[in-house]
């Protein structure tokens, strides 16, 4: 195994992982605050991807430019979903919440199927076939580099929001202490809806960025939902930096597993890791100790 192959693999894995991290961030935010397991995670992200696809086809917009639009639209979608539908099942047992979100996921997948058809669709952007050369031996492809940069920027924005803004702090307060937050007078329902909206917006952004890397089709979603869960568990549920760290870790370990083992086994590696983390350190790498 030659060094530069390894280096290239890890570099690619890192960049891909940053995009994974952005998508996992959406899940982490929602679960960390509202304690709802969003089984429609991948589907919402795919909505973002289709949006970017449409923008590219109609207006020739580079997906990265579609990010703010997608984020805005999906924010509204997420806010509405939480306040009208999901809040009604918050008190129901886990399996009912799961079923509702799974049913919503099915509706999104099949809605996309009706509108876009089942064929995988890719954008053929002008720089699809280009790469950057770093030094003599490191080759980074352009689409991946741009995607990673966008992912980092958006994640940074989000983290900043939660750490420094008033609303962000209010949301974190709800997550930490629901009763206390209510006592203090925070409008928890509104904040929950806001959080879901933000989570969905995050997914919209991640979707746009992901379109640069892969093709979109309606059945893409479940794989990404699972992946996001693996990342969030390993990184630590409720920890935002954990989601990013988890994303990078999974991105790189998948790349490594593909090179060292067989590529068709790379997901097996992630699942194995998930099992280990669940058993040995369920709070993940950076999460707080779990109930």
């Amino acid at each position, binding site marked *: *195994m*030659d060094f530069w*192959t390894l280096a*290239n*693999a890890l570099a*690619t*894995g890192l960049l*891909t992982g940053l995009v994974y991290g952005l998508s996992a961030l959406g899940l982490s935010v929602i679960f960390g605050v509202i304690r709802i397991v969003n089984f429609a995670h991948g589907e919402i992200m795919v909505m973002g991807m289709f949006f970017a696809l449409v923008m590219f086809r109609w207006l020739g917009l580079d997906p990265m430019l579609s990010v703010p639009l997608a984020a805005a639209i999906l924010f509204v979608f997420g806010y509405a979903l939480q306040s009208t539908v999901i809040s009604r099942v918050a008190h129901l047992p886990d399996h009912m919440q799961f079923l509702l979100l799974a049913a919503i996921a099915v509706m999104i997948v099949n809605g996309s199927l009706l509108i876009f*058809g*089942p*064929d*995988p669709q*890719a954008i*053929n952007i002008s720089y*699809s*076939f*280009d*790469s950057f050369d770093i030094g003599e031996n490191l*080759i980074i*492809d*352009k689409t*991946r580099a741009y995607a990673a940069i966008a992912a980092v920027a958006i994640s940074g924005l989000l983290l900043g929001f939660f750490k420094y803004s008033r609303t962000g702090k209010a949301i974190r307060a709800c997550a930490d202490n629901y009763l206390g937050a209510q006592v203090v007078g925070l409008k928890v329902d509104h904040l929950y809806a806001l959080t879901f909206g933000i989570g969905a917006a995050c997914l919209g952004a991640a979707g746009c960025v992901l379109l640069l*890397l*892969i*093709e979109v*089709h309606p*059945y*893409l979603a479940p*794989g990404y939902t699972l992946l996001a869960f693996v990342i969030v568990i390993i990184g630590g549920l409720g920890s935002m930096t954990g989601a990013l760290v988890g994303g990078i870790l999974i991105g790189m370990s*998948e*790349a490594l597993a*593909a*090179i060292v083992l*067989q*590529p*068709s086994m*790379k*997901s097996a590696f992630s699942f194995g890791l998930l099992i280990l983390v669940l058993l040995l350190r369920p709070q993940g790498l950076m999460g707080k100790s779990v109930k």
Partner: protein
Amino acid sequence: MTDKVNKTKSEKTTGSIISRRQFTAGVAAVGAAASVGPWYIKNARAAEPLKVGVLLPRSGGQAQIGIDCQRGADAALPILKDLGYPELKFMLADFETKVDVARTQTAKLIDEGAHLVVGAFDSGATMAAAQVCEQRNIPLVVNIAAVPKLTGMGLKWVFRNFPHGPMIVKDAFVNQKVLFKMTGHTPKTVTLMHVNDTFGSSLAGALFKLAPRFKMPYKIVEKISYDPYGRDLSAEVRKAKASKGEALWVVSRLNDAIMMTKEMVKQRFEPMGILSTGPGWYDQEYMKATGKFGDDVISLVPWHDSNKPLSKTLEAYFAKHHPDRQVNPNHTYTFEGIMVAADAYKRAGSTDAKALQAALRTTNITNNVTTAERITFDKNGQNPHVKNSAVQNRGGKNLVILPQSAAVAKPIWPMRPWKKRG
């Protein structure tokens, strides 16, 4: 139950005016049937069109190819009519690129009265359909499917006019040797990349089993299998590049082919050349998506013989109805599948399953389109005469380069470097 026949514009039956040929055929059929026994009379209305269930992936990952195969089937109707074959009626079914659906759709076709099924392009789906057809005693004519087990399991109702894995691989080895000799460039090492599904695994397996027997001049240094539902192939291509195989041999499908090419260009991976056994790389959609980067790929696949009169007819039909498409194996083998069905019906004179099965067993067609000299079926239901060619992509066209007798161009090997294209 209502007869849920998917009516599309391709469901044209071959005319309502009975020509003299059809009338004579009809009388002969009734006579023949009457002599066999009363219980055949019920089905021996010779003017009755043969209901052919056409099972293809019309949605899902293989939709493009399934729809392409249907073009070949559609071409068959008017062409066969002109040749005096009896009337056929299509019942279109879609297995959505899922094996489970293939099973239920085949059962549904049979429940709705299909006398015979043609399909299904995908190896796994075709195997599942074959099991259903075997149990229900309805013939299955395989248009395209390479898994050897299909005609190696002792099934009595399956008839395949397409090469299976070992046949494709054997011809590939032979053609490769000629290619290397002709161009003077022989790779010492080869990297194999294959999709990890029924088709890809069985072909790769056949490759490994047969390579020593053919004393190939190269060693296979790396075998990379990848997930058919994979999201991107960057890691796979990187591994291939690192393996330092001089040439790349791929067994893949259409979408992987496109993704792989993109990755190879991005990662500056330039093997001596790309050899493919399987679909995708010769496809129009592939060439459209990859542009100049899709040139010079050599597909070692079954192809048609442009010199045969029926090929000329088919090519003329395509020139008229699909001027932007080239005739490829999706079309030719599906066309021949329909022809086999029509031919069996003509000789059986009845839509009865056992009669059709018996007629299929004695098929002997020489007026065909593909490179097989004739279409017959051995005791396992396999046509032993099918042959494979070598076809190279050039500027959006597929040019036959081997066998030399059918070649229209000289091969380019090694392939041109990415930067030097267009």
